[in-house]
């Protein structure tokens, strides 16, 4: 028995994990999902933004973090659109423009959002932190055309922007360092309220910025998106995936316990010998 556990084929673990994840997706269980204070603060801040104000979304989503970040972007953008808040969205990652286009293909018709009037998709800018610093310094000079190469001059929404201070809020969506760039080059010098939508991996390093008040809100991983969906009463793909997430964690906890018990038992057997 002990040897079976110690020599368990990793493929068995993967197959069981897939089954454990699939079952709740197929037949949702409805496990309770507590709302964290970070998600609550994010929802409440966005919910209180005045209609017709303009929000800047800085997107660094790529395929490797799509499952966590795109549901967050979808649910926040939907909430913003339902309140008639205008959106300017830009990309600091090469793969991000595709997600920006997809976002408005998904919601623009439903909320009667028009490009140039209600939203503007800005093109990708290379440089990472340098690009973020340029956004903070002079966003109007940095961008002259939108993602479709149409001149920004003359667009009603863009004509309202003179500097980054004209945004009522900046939302950074990324799984790397972009939140820290935003805090350093936009939030700290211009005092623009900032929200971070992050992957779960960087939760521990981003949390202190929320605790210190530098971030007014923070969504982390798939559960952050699910919590936002529940608060805005628009359950979506994130909420649907949370049962699977919880059961997956339980399976991993079981594996950790079994692994440790088997290890301790095998060690005591070796000592006896």
């Amino acid at each position, binding site marked *: 028995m002990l040897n079976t556990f110690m020599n368990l084929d990793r493929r068995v673990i993967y197959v069981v994990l897939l089954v454990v994840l699939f079952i709740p997706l*197929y037949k949702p269980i409805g496990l309770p999902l507590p709302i964290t204070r970070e998600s609550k603060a994010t929802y409440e801040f966005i919910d209180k933004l005045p209609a017709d104000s303009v929000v800047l979304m800085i997107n660094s989503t790529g395929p490797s973090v799509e499952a966590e970040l795109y549901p967050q972007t979808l649910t926040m953008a939907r909430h913003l659109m339902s309140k008639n808040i205008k959106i300017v969205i830009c990309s600091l990652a090469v793969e991000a423009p595709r997600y920006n286009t997809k976002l408005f293909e998904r919601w623009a018709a439903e909320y009667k959002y028009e490009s140039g009037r209600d939203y503007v998709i800005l093109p990708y800018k290379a440089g990472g932190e340098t690009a973020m610093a340029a956004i903070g310094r002079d966003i109007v000079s940095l961008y002259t055309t939108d993602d479709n190469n149409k001149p920004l001059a003359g667009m009603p929404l863009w004509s309202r922007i003179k500097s980054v201070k004209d945004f009522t809020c900046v939302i950074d969506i990324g799984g790397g360092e972009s939140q820290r760039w935003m805090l350093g080059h936009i939030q700290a010098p211009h005092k623009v309220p900032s929200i971070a939508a992050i992957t779960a991996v960087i939760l521990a390093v981003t949390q202190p910025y929320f605790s210190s008040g530098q971030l007014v809100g923070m969504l*982390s991983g*798939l559960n952050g998106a699910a919590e936002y969906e529940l608060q805005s009463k628009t359950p979506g793909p994130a909420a649907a995936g949370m049962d699977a997430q919880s059961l997956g964690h339980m399976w991993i906890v079981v594996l950790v316990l079994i692994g440790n018990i088997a290890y301790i038992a095998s060690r005591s057997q070796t000592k006896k010998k």
Partner: protein
Amino acid sequence: MDTIGIWIAAVLTIAVYSFLFKENKMFTFAEHLFLGLAVGHAAVLGYQNVMNMAVNPLVQKGQITWLIPLLGGALLFTRLFPPYAWLSRIPLGFMMGVAAGLSLKRAIDSEFWAQAAATVNLGLNTLDNVIYLVTVVAVLVYFFFGVSEKSPGGAAVMNVGKLGQYLMMIAFGASLGSTIMARLSLVIGRLQFLFGTWIPILPK
């Protein structure tokens, strides 16, 4: 067209996950294809970026200052010609300098001062805050190497440092937990695609 895209995405998803069974040709093909696509995509966007940001303003509007970054970019390619490779150090040094300057300014403003101020102003009115402060102090003490066990009060300092070490291990454990959560989210996203879009058997 959408249907073809969905099928390609589904087959490639299965090809990538087939690695968990064992390395195979399907996985290698998907891996190489992804790499090729990513590089191609980045190259096209990079080209557009250079054209829209520098070449077009230079040619169409006569903004000659764009010659400077264009020249700097061109110098980077001198690495391909060993006798002139030293020239690539000029733009490289400039880029490193800009990056270091930006990072330093950011780190001092929003990371060091803001975090230090928030920690100092932390009220000890909640258990969270007490744990936070104890952790900050204990971890800082752990990295204080100027005291040995034989120094006056050294044993107490070492014990606080030991506490800091355990607290760091808890933090690393929490980070690992978050990483597992993130990886599971990726699998869930793929399962939702495979059984929600490709073979739509999941409830809407």
